[in-house]
């Protein structure tokens, strides 16, 4: 079987759409709420999760025939934890500021249900290469939602995109503000608060479900 057969590509593509881990399976919501107030930490988080997920999937897939069934969960945890610590160290070394913003949530990747879910559901029963693609695909599905949510939260909550002022400069004195702020626009404080992340995810689910025919439930 070729490396990029249509079956393998499906592993990459599906999690972006009809089996998205966040909007369809509704997993990994906690970190989606916590790190999406700004775009930069969300992107870093998405990349971190992708690294952890792809490599833990590969490792578990390679060990799948040797790990005794009864202790598989603890083995998975050890592997995920080791990878998360690696990622955490890399973040601290290269993007210290973002790492500080993400605080405990990098460590909490260990408890991200998507990762455990994919290990249990996929890597334990498949070869390393498809497992790798599955990890990348699901992490991308997770990451893309994180980035969409973070984009809107940062844009409407802080008036910036990746730290750049989109709506003009705001200052305490209206006379010194520029752009939209000079005509009375005010950032929406609710967007910064976690509940709005939940509502944004909800709206994405709503849009996705009304567009995708496969997801419309009959009742």
């Amino acid at each position, binding site marked *: 079987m070729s490396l990029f057969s249509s079956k393998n590509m499906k592993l990459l593509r599906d999690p972006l759409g009809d089996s998205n881990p966040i909007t369809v399976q509704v997993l990994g919501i906690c970190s989606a709420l916590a790190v999406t107030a700004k775009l930069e930490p969300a992107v870093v988080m998405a990349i971190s999760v992708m690294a952890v997920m792809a490599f833990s999937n590969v490792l578990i897939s390679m060990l799948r025939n040797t790990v005794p069934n009864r202790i598989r969960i603890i083995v998975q945890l050890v592997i995920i934890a080791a990878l998360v610590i690696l990622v955490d160290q890399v973040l601290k070394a290269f993007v210290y500021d973002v790492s500080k913003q993400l605080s405990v949530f990098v460590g909490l990747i260990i408890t991200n249900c998507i990762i455990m879910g994919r290990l249990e559901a996929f890597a334990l029963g498949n070869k390393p290469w498809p497992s790798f693609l599955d990890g990348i695909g699901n992490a991308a599905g997770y990451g893309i939602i994180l980035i969409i949510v973070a984009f809107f939260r940062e844009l409407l909550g802080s008036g910036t995109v990746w730290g750049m002022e989109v709506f003009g400069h705001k200052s305490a004195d209206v006379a010194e503000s520029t752009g939209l702020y000079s005509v*009375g626009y005010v950032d*929406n*404080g609710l967007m910064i608060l976690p509940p709005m992340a939940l*509502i944004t995810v909800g709206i994405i689910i*709503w849009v996705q479900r009304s567009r995708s025919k496969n997801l419309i439930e009959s009742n």
Partner: protein
Amino acid sequence: MKALRRYLDKIKPNFEKGGKLYKFKSVFEGFETFLFVPNKTTFTGSHVRDAIDMKRTMIIVVMALMPAMLFGMWNVGYQHYTALGLEETLPLTFWYGFLKVLPLILVSYIVGLGIEFAFAQIRGHEINEGFLVSGMLIPLIVPVTIPLWMVAVATAFAVIIGKEVFGGTGMNIVNPALTARAFLFFAYPKQMSGEIWVSGLEGEKLVDGYSGATAMAQATTTIDMNKSLEVAKQVGDSDLVSSLQSQIGATIDGLPSAYDAFMGWIPGSIGETSTLAILLGAIVLIFTGIGSLRIMLSVFAGGFLMGLLLNAVAVNPYMEIDAYYHLLIGGFAFGAVFMATDPVTASQTARGKIIYGFLIGVIAVIIRVLNPAYPEGMMLAILLMNVFAPLIDHYVVQGNIKRRLKRAKA
């Protein structure tokens, strides 16, 4: 009227199935039934007929809101002229307020109804009147100084997230008007803090010592002051202690008198200041059987008893405020009469209504007095109990079933 009827009949075929404007059928029907009593009759089965339908219900609530709204308009003008140290005639005062409040009402209705119409079209539903009341409530529970675009955003949020995602009128979990206010409160805290809620003061010369703060905002500041006082006492800084004590005393003394708060000529959100006007509305609601007397009374009872309880504990000056005073200031009366009684989001069972109302009163006063970050507890208390209302009903119904089973066995 006849001409109007003829005109409607003339254009009606366009909106029937197969007509060129069929896709706007629900809009047409909405307007037609708004203007005339529907002439539809059912063909099968027997139906209980009643003079009251949703449209009438909504119109009665809007009528009950009129005293509070008209008074609110006058009060907007009165506060404005008082702040500038002027005395104006009644019509002029009212006119000033009318011009300030009307845009808020228009924005709320246009945005809200626009979204409702759009959803009705997309879903192929009939347009219903659910927004008539919400659209009136939203302008009455915001300060007059709020920018119009914020009202528009909040209304859109409330109608879409508070109502339409759950399936529209009658399916919502929380009160849409309060959802709009909660949205404003958390999204634009500066505009909703209650510090200056009097319109048209920018660049004007104000009366000496004029603050413009609402009673709730003033009272809330004492919570923080009291905390500093405790610290100062521990440190033993006697100057600071005495200055803080006199500050707290002055703030509490500076609160409007119970009579002023009852009559309503104090700063506040547009419709909520006058307890008297709200009670007039309450009479209409109770008399027509639309608002639940049970809920109103239990909200007041809950707030009053919690006030008494706080009086008994009284570790800070805010707690020592007379229990009945809590019922007069802020949105307490407005919430109790118009918000808590919302038939969709309130408890449905008789006993459930009492528990629901009582807890609203209790929680509202707790939030007010104990949490300095939230000056007005009524909004949060009602939203919280909205969420719990089905649970209360569930246990009331289950309790009833158990009791009857027991009786049947005995």
